[in-house]
């Protein structure tokens, strides 16, 4: 294997409190050294002048649609989109066809990723068989096959007793339990956030309480079982408060937010454009403000995209018939810079934490750092180049993004996985 010298950038590594102009040398797939005037004979050189050199970004919440829904996305195309968004590691949710609820499916994903993936792929296993919420999946076998967490994302476990048992097993296996917190009885039939906008548009609402009651339930069960519990795509004010409260009681809980939940509100649905339809739904201004406050105060641990590709034909329907979900890998960094950093809500270092040390700690991954000896995963990005997101140029197979045509300031420059450049701008 060869060597790569990432030269002349501002190296920003929150895991080691490093923030200074420096070169990064990667040899044999591992970080060898950070410094100036490194001996890099024979190394390939990447010029990072004017850019920021950070540990490779991790997206812990992605839907790759393979196996079974390959017309919307594949492991290969999803990884390309991830690389183009500056991500070096992604975790794929189990709601494929079949559901990833057994070691067989996990092994298939791991094997396919080895063959076609340009970034690191970790699988998340289902909590229950078929994600039907009844019988527990083969969690132990899936762990042996490589899963890093369990979740019934998109089809939350409604039965509290089943969730309790899952948490007990997860604790014994040292796996985090990730829950898509939604009380399906409260949200039933809803298409958007319940509030003045849903009343105006005549669409059925998904109340904030449908998230809150499940966050509350899960926090109680986490306290009872001692499991590591993670709230996926948290979107409401009260959920932020409850996670903060649980943490103050010493619980091992964490949470993520998506860029769309801090960047846009339910007021943007006026044209019944299904690219604004996802779960949890875009919330109202006060929820969005509370989520941003949670990012600032440190309650929120990670930014994750919930990248959910859908074929055009599925989204080209009456709003109430369209499936939930939007793509997100290629716009996450641009949105985070725009809404969090450029608006002076958080500094760059905190933003990088949300993409690196945050998710790495939740999943106990040996990534998200540039310490010598670590995996040679590096995200190079800048903060001021202006660009426009053209969804037609997306590396994803799908086009369901509400951010088509949006102007950004700053975004990914190069993505390096295991010392190999897998994507560069232009």
């Amino acid at each position: 294997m060869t060597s790569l010298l990432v030269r002349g950038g501002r190296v920003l590594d929150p895991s080691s409190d490093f923030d200074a102009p420096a070169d990064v040398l990667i040899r044999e797939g591992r970080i060898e050294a950070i410094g100036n005037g490194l001996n890099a004979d024979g190394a390939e050189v990447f010029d990072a002048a004017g850019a920021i050199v950070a540990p490779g970004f991790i997206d812990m919440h992605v839907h790759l649609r393979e196996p079974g829904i390959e017309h919307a996305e594949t492991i290969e195309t999803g990884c390309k989109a991830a690389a183009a968004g500056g991500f070096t590691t992604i975790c794929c949710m189990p709601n494929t066809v079949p559901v990833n609820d057994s070691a067989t499916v996990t092994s298939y994903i791991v094997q396919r990723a080895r063959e076609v993936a340009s970034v690191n792929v970790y699988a998340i296993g289902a909590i229950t068989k078929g994600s039907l919420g009844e019988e527990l999946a083969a969690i132990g076998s899936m762990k042996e096959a490589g899963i890093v967490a369990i979740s019934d994302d998109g089809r939350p476990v409604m039965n509290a007793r089943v969730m309790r048992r899952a948490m007990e097993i997860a604790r014994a296996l040292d796996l985090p339990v990730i829950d898509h917190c939604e009380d399906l009885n409260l949200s039933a039939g809803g298409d958007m956030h319940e509030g003045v906008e849903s009343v105006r548009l005549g669409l059925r609402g998904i109340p904030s309480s449908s998230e809150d009651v499940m966050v509350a339930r899960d926090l109680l069960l986490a306290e009872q079982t001692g499991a590591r519990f993670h709230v996926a795509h948290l979107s409401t004010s009260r959920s932020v408060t409850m996670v903060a409260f649980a943490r103050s009681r010493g619980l091992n809980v964490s949470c993520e937010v998506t860029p769309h939940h801090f960047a846009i509100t339910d007021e943007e649905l006026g044209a019944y454009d299904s690219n604004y339809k996802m779960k949890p739904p875009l919330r109202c201004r006060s929820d969005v403000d509370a989520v941003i406050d949670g990012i600032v105060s440190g309650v929120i641990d990670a930014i994750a995209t919930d990248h959910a590709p859908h074929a055009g034909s599925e989204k080209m329907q009456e709003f109430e018939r369209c499936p939930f979900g939007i793509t997100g890998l290629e716009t996450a960094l641009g949105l985070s810079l725009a809404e969090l950093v450029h608006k002076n809500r958080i500094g760059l270092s905190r933003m990088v934490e949300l993409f690196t040390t945050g998710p790495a700690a939740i999943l106990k991954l040996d990534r998200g750092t540039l310490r010598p000896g670590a995996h040679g995963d590096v995200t190079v990005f800048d903060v001021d180049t202006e660009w426009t997101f053209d969804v037609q140029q997306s590396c994803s197979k799908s086009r369901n993004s509400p951010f088509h045509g949006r102007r950004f300031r700053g975004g990914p420059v190069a993505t390096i996985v295991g010392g190999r450049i897998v994507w560069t701008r232009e």
Partner: protein
Amino acid sequence: MQPPMTLPDRMPAGLLDIESLDRREIEAILDRARFFQPLPNESYRRLDALRGKTIVNLFFEASTRTRVSFEIAAKRLGADTLSIAAQGSSTSKGESLVDTLNTLVAMRPSAIVMRHAASGAPQFLARHLHIPIVNAGDGTHEHPTQALLDARTILDRLPALEGLRVAIIGDIAHSRVARSNIHLLSKFGAEIVLCGPPSLLPRELERLAPGVRLAYDMMEAIRGADVIMMLRVQLERQHEAPMAASEYFRFYGLRLEHLALARPDVIVMHPGPINRGRELSSEVADSQRSVILNQVENGVAVRMAVLERILSDPQPDGRV
């Protein structure tokens, strides 16, 4: 307040909702509708303003009065019309809404009048098709021509909308008629009291438009009202156990004794179809205060005004 004399621009994309119309546009339609109202014992005027135009009435939901009303309106203006009850069309063979509409548009009609069970269906189509679309009711969102004909009916009896006290009673949550009326009446400065059982009266309605307040008690809603609009309970759009019919009528059904609380010249309206003994008593429906059939009658005149406005060719002096 007198309407301004200048005529507003043509509606480029048909008529999708009331919310995005301004007062001037609404006034122009209401004024023009008056011109189309027939004299007693006569039928509607027959004009040929839309000669050579073809209007497709595409109804994805059952409708009698609205469909017939649009059809008569179009014919009275000299247009050719075609009505399709879409439950039995290619949509039942799995064709998507956009493909169905594209197929129709390829046959070059002049406009499409559409009713659909999904809120926002006409807005969604308007983004993808280059043809005027008239919304004849979309899900639980809006029913703009109903609000226009209701306003015409009120103005036939009362001098102005401004300052009127209008009580809208019933299943507000699922009512596209209520939403369109709330927007229209609010634009003209009416005071709007919405009343119904709590599960059919979301609190957020108060913030939908200026001048709206909520009441859970029918007596309170009716007191001093100039206009009472009763709504049908839309069982087909409710997804949970509704209130028992007898309980509903007891607390939210309009009966003669209620009318004493309202202003002496109060008018009672209902978009139809009415359910006697469910949301209003037979005595009220047939009383002198009821203008329910006037509403139906005005439907044709208002729809003539709307279709003419959307489809007639501009006159040399720029008027439409």
